[in-house]
């Protein structure tokens, strides 16, 4: 669907000329009545039609008995009747030509199979008639552009540039109340409800082209279509920031999400990879969510890294500096002229390097002077102003003065006035001047860090997945054969064939089904050889004594074959044994792991880490969504904490990073090309010194779906 068409199709929700509310009670107290009252009190100037078969007039407005009686076709309908009655209403609305409906009613999928069936019927009826549906089981929608409060929250925050959607209606009400309290302005609020039709991706598309929305904020517990979400979010993020609080990151939290939404909470790593790809800013707490939103909506993005901290107290400045280091926010290095100018303007005891301490007795004038000098330094890209209430301090005047300097210079500024009553006026002045105000320096730094990440994402070139040359037919044949034989794993020589088809180097060797074959293979490969038990049920061969290295003659081959099979059989009697893989001995190199895991929400993810304890014990791994570009693959390699070992440490030569990058790109292409691949492990990928390439020594592929 064309983007414009998408935006227009949701215009009925955000900018209707008229609204019908179905299920308005004659007495106050019911949900329908609440929505109706909110529409009127919110200042909506269009026509509002209450519908109740048993009333002619409600709250002074003409009431209609059913949809057919309406004098004109409303752009939007809000339905607040019991679940059983909703289908009929949707049918009537659709037949009339209404294009947008909000179903507030509960009693659908969230109640079990019967409710789910009702929901499906309603969605089908709406789709047949061209009605877009929000909900059901939702709070409603608020659109400040048209002063439309089509929700049953009576609190409406001030108008502003933030669009907010929430998968939890109850949390939504709380946030609306809080936003009103602290004066955060919204452009729209949407409660997603059961997401029977409209989901988070639809809203993101609508807000991409909405001129009133400068920042999009979302509370989500699950995502309906992960790949579409990443696509749509990427497009949005190119023009405005998207901040998401994704709940259910812990195991226990995930369980709660599953219970609450009936969807898998989704893997943490998959969400991280997806959000990174789309450039989404992730908030870990509700506080972060709105701290970030405030920062993004009120201040320009910093033009680059480099914050100057301006303070009247050393302690908080040190805390802020620690926070900067922890969050990767760089402190600006001041030019010599700047420090000299500061020394001239400030008392002797003042600190003139970053953080700049104007001392406890600073009044507004000293703060402003320091701010002006800092603003003139080309290395300073943002300003954090910390203030503690000492006797001479002038919080209000300081706020105004410094804000004026920042505005004049176009420098993003954040205020951290610490305390409560003594700085209350100062905080209010900051807010009035459009400067985000935080109680503690860590929150200010957190917001700045998010803004810098966003800027960096915008500045980075969009990764382009490489075209990979491969024999896809050969791979298709291997997969089909396994599926036909009802095998869930492809391993040993068949897996090696798959890797080879994608140009991934494999060691010489093959599967021996008996001792005779083993001897033939060994002779053909040439001694010394390695021998490994081949079984789809044995994942950690070395733990079971399932590997013999450095086999140097035929007698050893025979002995090793018998020992390997007997050992496996006795330790895992139920394991299916294919035989023994006989391979060339690989020269020693660095062992790394490249893997694939298909996430139900986001599709295949490619993983990289150094082999052995680095992946298994330290969990030092990186992930990306597939397919990856060579640049992304390289970033994956350099990001692992143990990267130093690959680069060459303590006299060791550097490893062939290019070869690793090549394998990662190819594996990610393989996973993207074949939906049947659910998991894949190259463990180890043996990496030689630079220029020596890499060999996929052991490969295992899990298929299905």
């Amino acid at each position, binding site marked *: 669907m064309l983007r414009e068409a998408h935006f227009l199709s949701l215009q009925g929700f955000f900018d209707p000329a008229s609204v019908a509310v179905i299920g308005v009670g004659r007495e106050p107290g019911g949900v329908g009545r609440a929505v109706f009252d909110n529409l009127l009190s919110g200042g909506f100037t269009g026509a509002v039609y209450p519908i109740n078969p048993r009333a002619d007039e409600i709250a002074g407005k003409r009431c209609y008995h059913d949809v057919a009686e309406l004098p004109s076709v409303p752009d939007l309908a809000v339905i607040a009747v019991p679940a059983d009655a909703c289908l009929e209403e949707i049918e009537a609305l659709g037949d009339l030509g209404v294009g947008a409906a909000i179903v507030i009613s509960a009693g659908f*999928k*969230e*109640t*079990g*199979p019967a*409710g*789910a069936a009702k929901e*499906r019927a309603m969605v089908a009826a709406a789709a047949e008639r061209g009605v877009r549906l929000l909900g059901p089981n939702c709070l409603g929608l608020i659109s400040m552009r048209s002063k439309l409060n089509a929700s049953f929250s009576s609190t409406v925050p001030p108008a502003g540039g933030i669009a907010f959607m929430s998968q939890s209606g109850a949390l939504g009400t709380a946030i609306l109340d809080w936003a009103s309290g602290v004066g955060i302005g919204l452009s729209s609020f949407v409660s997603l409800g059961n997401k029977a039709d409209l989901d988070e991706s639809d809203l993101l598309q609508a807000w991409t082209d909405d001129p009133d929305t400068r920042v999009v904020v979302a509370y989500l517990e699950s995502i309906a279509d992960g790949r579409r979400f990443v696509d749509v979010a990427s497009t949005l993020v190119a023009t405005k920031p998207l901040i998401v609080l994704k709940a259910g990151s812990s*195991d226990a939290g*995930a*369980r709660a*999400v*599953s*219970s*609450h*939404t*009936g*969807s*898998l*909470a989704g*893997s*943490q790593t998959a969400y991280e990879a997806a959000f990174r790809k789309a450039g989404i800013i992730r908030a870990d707490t509700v506080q972060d969510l709105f701290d970030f939103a405030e920062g993004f909506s009120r201040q320009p993005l910093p033009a680059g890294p480099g914050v100057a901290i301006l303070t009247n107290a050393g302690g908080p400045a040190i805390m802020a500096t620690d926070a900067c280091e922890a969050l990767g926010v760089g402190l600006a290095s001041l030019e010599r002229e700047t420090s000299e100018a500061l020394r001239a303007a400030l008392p002797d005891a003042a600190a003139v390097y970053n953080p700049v301490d104007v001392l406890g007795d600073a009044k507004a004038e000293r703060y402003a002077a320091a701010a002006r000098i800092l603003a003139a330094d080309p290395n300073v890209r943002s300003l954090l102003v910390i203030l503690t209430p000492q006797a001479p301090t002038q919080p209000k005047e300081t706020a105004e003065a410094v804000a004026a300097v920042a505005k004049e210079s176009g420098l993003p500024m954040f205020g951290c006035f610490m305390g409560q009553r003594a700085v209350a006026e100062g905080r209010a002045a900051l807010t009035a001047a459009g400067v985000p105000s935080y109680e503690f320096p860590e929150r200010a730094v957190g917001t700045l860090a998010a803004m810098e990440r966003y800027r960096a994402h915008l500045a980075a070139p969009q990764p382009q997945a490489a075209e990979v040359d491969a024999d896809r037919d050969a791979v298709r044949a291997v997969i089909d054969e396994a599926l036909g*034989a*009802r095998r*869930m794993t492809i391993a040993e020589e068949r897996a090696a064939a798959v890797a080879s088809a994608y140009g991934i180097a494999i060691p010489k060797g093959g599967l021996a*089904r*008996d001792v005779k074959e083993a001897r033939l293979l060994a002779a053909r490969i040439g001694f010394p050889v390695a021998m490994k038990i081949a079984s789809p049920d044995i994942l950690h061969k070395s733990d079971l004594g399932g590997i013999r290295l450095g086999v140097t003659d035929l007698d050893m081959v025979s002995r090793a074959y018998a020992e390997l099979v007997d050992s496996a*059989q006795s330790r895992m009697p139920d394991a*299916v*044994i*294919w*035989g023994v893989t006989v391979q060339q001995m690989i020269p020693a190199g660095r062992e790394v792991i490249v893997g694939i*895991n298909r996430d*139900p929400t986001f599709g295949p993810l490619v993983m990289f880490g150094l082999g052995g304890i680095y992946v298994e014990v330290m969990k030092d791994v990186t992930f990306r969504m597939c397919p990856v570009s060579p640049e992304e693959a390289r970033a994956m390699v350099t990001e692992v904490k143990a990267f130093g070992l690959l680069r060459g440490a303590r006299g060791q030569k550097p490893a062939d990073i290019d070869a690793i990058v090549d394998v990662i790109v190819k594996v990610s292409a393989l996973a993207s090309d074949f939906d049947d691949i*659910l*998991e894949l492990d190259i463990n180890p990928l043996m990496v030689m010194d630079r220029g020596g390439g890499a060999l996929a020594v052991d490969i295992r592929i*899990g298929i*299905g779906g």
Partner: protein
Amino acid sequence: MRTIIVASTKPYAGKTGICVALLGELRERGVGAGYFKPYGTMPFRDGNVLTDRDAYYVNTTLPKPGPMGSVCAIVRSERFVEDVLLGREPSPSERVADAFATVSKGQDVMVVEGPSDVYQGMAAGVQLCAVADLLDGRVLLVDNPEHLELPDAVLGAADCLGTRLGGVVLNRIHESRSAAIIEHLVPFYRGRGIPYFGMIADDPTLASITVSELVDELGGTVLCAEDRLDEPVESFMIGAMGQEKALRFFRRKARKAVITGGDRADVQLAALETSTSAIVLTGNMPPSSLVLARADQLGVPMVLVDMDTLTAVEKLEGIMGQVRLHGPGKADRMREMFVAGVAVDDLLEAFDL
């Protein structure tokens, strides 16, 4: 009249299935055959008649089933065991001969299902070799050799059957073993003059139970997808880990039953993401209504049981893993696999059928 006796070297080698397949194959070739089982060990009541469960089933696959009172001559019961041990049982072999005479009347060919191993019934004089002489039949021996096993039982049977041994068929052979069998075991048979007619692959679907059999065994209540109770359950897995690990774990098996607590919405959803035939909820804890709705939508029955996980596992281990014949499509599947693995023409010729 020609009589072929299908016997095993060990229990669960699959001889009953082979009887069904053989009867079907003969029928297909226009040869009408009757069925008889001299000695059964699974008591089953068909109305007033006490018979053997597998015999009952095989008999029902015949276009003209034999008289149920005679199809299985002796059903091993506590009473029978006592009588044999105390010398009170008059003449088991006479009972077998009489029943056989009744069932085989008017038949050209009889397919007889022998005992579970070479010596079963010897205390009563109805072991394989005795029955072969009594019924004047030739024996098709079904073996299921496992790793590191020598064909001791086959040689034992050959020893006492002499020329009555018509040959051997191997059953439930996993593909990873087939090469070793062809290269080592088959030449051994040949060397000993034991005719070999082929090997039948292992098929996990034949060992499957249906969801409804699972429900019956566990005494559970079906909460949704009631129309999917005929689906096969080939294995089961226990879900007790976190959501991310659960998905990787559940991907390993298809057409499985997952056993988990009713409060584990994350495990249940992970199971629903993979090939799952049923979800068993233990401890009488009903699931979240949203997850129930999802399971219903996907057509996966959720079964609520009162017992704890360990008990449920023990019960399922008890009924799974053996070939269960009495299910939809199984008879056809068995014939399919029989024909695919066995040199049927050679076999029928060897037995003069």
